[in-house]
């Protein structure tokens, strides 16, 4: 644990970001096409270092949705951002 704390980023003027507190497939609503219609659970919302959310994406619903790296790779391969 001490090692982790020592290696946390500590820029001279740190900035923290707001994120979805319980980033879970049960809290994200979509229509039949898959368009986002709502994010519903904002209990305990707080801001934190951006790196934390990368970690939470990597754990998001591993069991229910399949390995995150597979669908992140899918997104990357389809170059979704190009159409955004």
């Amino acid at each position, binding site marked *: 644990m001490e090692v982790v704390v020592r290696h946390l980023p500590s820029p001279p003027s*740190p*900035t923290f*970001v707001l994120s979805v507190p319980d980033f879970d497939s049960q809290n994200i609503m979509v229509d039949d096409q898959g368009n986002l219609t709502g994010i*519903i659970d904002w209990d305990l919302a707080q801001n934190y270092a951006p790196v934390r959310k990368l*970690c939470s994406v990597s*754990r998001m619903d591993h069991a229910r949705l399949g390995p995150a790296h597979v669908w992140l790779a899918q997104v990357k391969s389809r170059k979704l951002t190009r159409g955004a």
Partner: protein
Amino acid sequence: MASQTDEDSDAETFGPLLHIPEASLVKLAMQIRADVFHMTSCSSSSRLVDRISGSYNLVHIIQLDSDLQLVIRIPATGWGARLTPPAAAAIESQLATLRLIASKTTIPVPQVYAFDTTTNNAIGAPYICMSFLPGQTVAKTWFDTSLPTSLEDRQLRILSTLARSLAQLARFSFIKIGSLHEGENGNLTVGPCYDWKENDDDGTISAAMSGPYDSAAAYVSTTTIPSTKIKRTVHGELQQRRLWRW
């Protein structure tokens, strides 16, 4: 405990909140409808459509008219000795966060119509009343082959619309780690973080408060758990799991 049924565990978590009569919930919803929508006509078909017990909230869906559904969320901290100032502050902070997101982004979040952090109301419990958002959960739609759309297209659309929405959170940056608090003048400040704390002995849940913190290191040192002293908090446990994945 493994032998415990869901009902026992719900009773432990929510106590008397599980027995709030449908009539009280409908009455509250109708009061809110009158205040917010200025609709006072009495619909005889008003009813409680669903009561969902989550880990930390009881969520009620009330049908008021053919086209108006309201959601009433009651936190597990809403009864007995759990009704503490941090429990109330956690509700207010959530509202400040939702207001900010609704006013400065296009991220679809529930609209808050009314709230009360006290028990002086028709249901005798703190609550947040919000709009009912359409759609199905990603948990249901991700692998659902009965829908007319192709699975792959749907999954990619979920990810792309979600990413486009969440990228907007980058508009806000803060110099401290904490939760948002709205002052009387409407200014937002970063105050303490909140967490649910579960008591191992009797299963009760209370709201805990700590921070705000100036650095990620200060946050992690305070809120994560040395393996010798496991503290049962939601963020704490998740945090530990996340740390192991780094």
